[in-house]
């Protein structure tokens, strides 16, 4: 674990953005998430780590109700976003997802122009009054996605023509264009090469100044590099949650220790 470098830890307590209380998820009869309680802070990068199939993606998808699209998926318990239950009957998941953006494992730009990719969210949410407004939003989002300089001359070219790393940053730009408060990322670097990964990681660190970022990763080094808080999942339970430095250097649970030293996974 000597190759791990930790980002400077902001030890001061931040506001809680998302609070999960007693969350259980079933896929049909399979119990995928077992009684998870966790508090995710604002303006912090929180990493979910754990062996494959332990429920990291499942839990992440609960946070913006993407699991609603899976018929057999059943979520119980409370998840509060700014103290409002997102599973309340009155909540429209569409409105929720504008607040809680998501970046997926495989870069998935729309087969449209780079401009339209970013402009789509603001358009359907009516964030721009006119074309100039929209142009501005698109530029701002692309700058935040750290990809503006690479694409500013080819905004009318298809987003699918970019390299993998560029596509993923475009997807991040697309997600931040709707001005979300939380950004969920499910293994955003797993399809990228090391250089693109480094660029995206750098970007995640910048995003922390504005958003609460939750990132699922299978790479412990990555968790160590980008996150301030880390949650370790195992077989559907949240085993340990705490400051990243502490989890990696001084884990409380023997399972966490086994995992980060490479004995389970």
């Amino acid at each position, binding site marked *: 674990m000597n190759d791990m470098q930790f980002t400077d830890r902001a030890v001061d307590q931040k506001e809680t953005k998302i609070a999960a209380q007693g969350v259980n998820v079933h896929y049909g009869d399979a119990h995928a998430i077992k009684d998870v309680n966790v508090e995710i802070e604002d303006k912090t990068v929180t990493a979910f780590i754990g062996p494959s199939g332990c429920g990291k993606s499942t839990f992440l998808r609960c946070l913006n109700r993407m699991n609603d699209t899976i018929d057999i998926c059943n979520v119980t318990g409370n998840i509060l976003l700014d103290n409002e239950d997102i599973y309340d009957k009155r909540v429209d998941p569409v409105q929720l997802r504008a607040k809680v953006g998501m970046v997926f494992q495989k870069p998935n730009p729309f087969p449209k122009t780079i401009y339209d990719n970013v402009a789509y*969210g603001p358009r359907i949410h009516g964030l721009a009054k006119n074309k100039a407004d929209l142009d501005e939003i698109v530029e701002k989002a692309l700058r935040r996605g750290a990809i503006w300089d690479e694409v500013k001359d080819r905004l009318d070219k298809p987003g699918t023509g970019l390299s993998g790393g560029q596509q993923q940053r475009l997807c991040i730009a*697309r997600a931040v264009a709707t001005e979300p408060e939380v950004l969920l990322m499910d293994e955003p670097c797993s399809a990228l090469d090391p250089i693109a990964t480094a660029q995206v990681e750098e970007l995640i660190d910048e995003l922390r100044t504005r958003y609460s970022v939750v990132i699922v990763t299978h790479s412990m080094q990555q968790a160590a590099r980008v996150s301030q808080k880390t949650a370790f999942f195992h077989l559907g339970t949240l085993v340990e949650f705490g400051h990243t430095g502490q989890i990696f250097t001084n884990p409380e649970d023997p399972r966490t220790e086994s995992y980060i030293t490479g004995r389970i996974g």
Partner: protein
Amino acid sequence: MSDTSKTSLLALSPRTKQRNAAEKRFRAYGVAAIAIGLLMLTVLVTNIFSRGTGAFQQTFVTVNVELLESKLDKKGNRDLEDIKKVTTFGYNPLIRDSVVAKVEELGIQTDLKAKDLGGILSKGAVGQLREFVIANPDKIGETIEFRFLAQSRVDGYLKGRVHRESIGNDKSISAEQLDLVDQLVDAGVIVKSFNMDFITGADASDQRPEAAGIGVAMLGSLSMMFVVLGLALPIGVAASIYLEEFAPKNRLTDIIEVNISNLAAVPSIVFGILGLAVFINYMHLPTSAPLVGGLVLTLMTLPTIIISTRAALKAVPPSIRDAALGVGASKMQAVFHHVLPLAAPGILTGTIIGLAQALGETAPLLLIGMVGFIASNAPETLADGLLAPNSAMPAQIYEWAKRADPAFYERAWGGIIILLVFLVTMNTLAVILRRRFERRW
């Protein structure tokens, strides 16, 4: 390791030899299969074209007709009502005399009577002349050049279908008439030329095969295709989108899915009898109407469109839906903004193939009276086109093929050429669309 077990790469092992031989045999089978397929296609196409191209040519006779005032407008005041009172029967002498005059003008010696001279023209010539006179009453009194259809035996003689040896007991033509035809051909009065009327015209009665065309039946087919397109496409696409994107996956939707697949395999005649029972007997829609034909074909095409649309929707990667939902699009926005445009080429291809199937379908039309109907008038209005009795291309072809006169047989083959041109065009369009928009993500 001993020396004997060491093998050289340059020598083939028995196992490799066996494998290579098997592969060679398989390739030979493949080539043979393709060759057989191509051979059959060639035979089919040459057959159709050698038999059918004749229908696109017709024999015409050019004569000068004197529009006698004494016959056409006895009172001489060019009153249209009076002129209309003269039936086609009254035009017969004019036609007859025009041929007689031509023969005399050319100095041809013949023992034929005036009636037999006129007999080389189609029985439709009088009608053509009458229509002209009613449209141009001011031309009465003048002598005007006309190009009339020759009767079908003369046409057959020029096309090699009718032979001198075989006309012994044919009442429609005699050896003397054929002698005259030979001479008129030499003089350039009788010529064979391209016949647009076959493509645009209406079917004709048994006595006038030379005048029969497929145009009106083509309009019937087109009207049906509009009905099919207008109903099957929106219904099919809506049903598919609902089933694929919105419907919960449960027992009921499973049953619906199985039934749609079953529906695609139902013989078309079943849809025909269903159409007869429901649309005609119960709903009292008119028989032989393209609207009813279109409704029946819609039922038949619907499963094809639903199946291909669902396949096209399934082929759109789920990550596109996730991406749209992830930025806060509603399910409907995700489908209509992102999934549907990507599935559109597939949907279109399926629709075109479904339409092509429907276009060539004959059996269901049997039961709703579109086969055997003689479509003699082109519909004048859109409503007429849908509701007035009509035939359809395949039905017209079947009708011609079963008539006794071999002149109709030739037209059946000609009709098949036209039908095939439509089908090949539609299928080519489908292939082009598919190629053009394939895999854009």
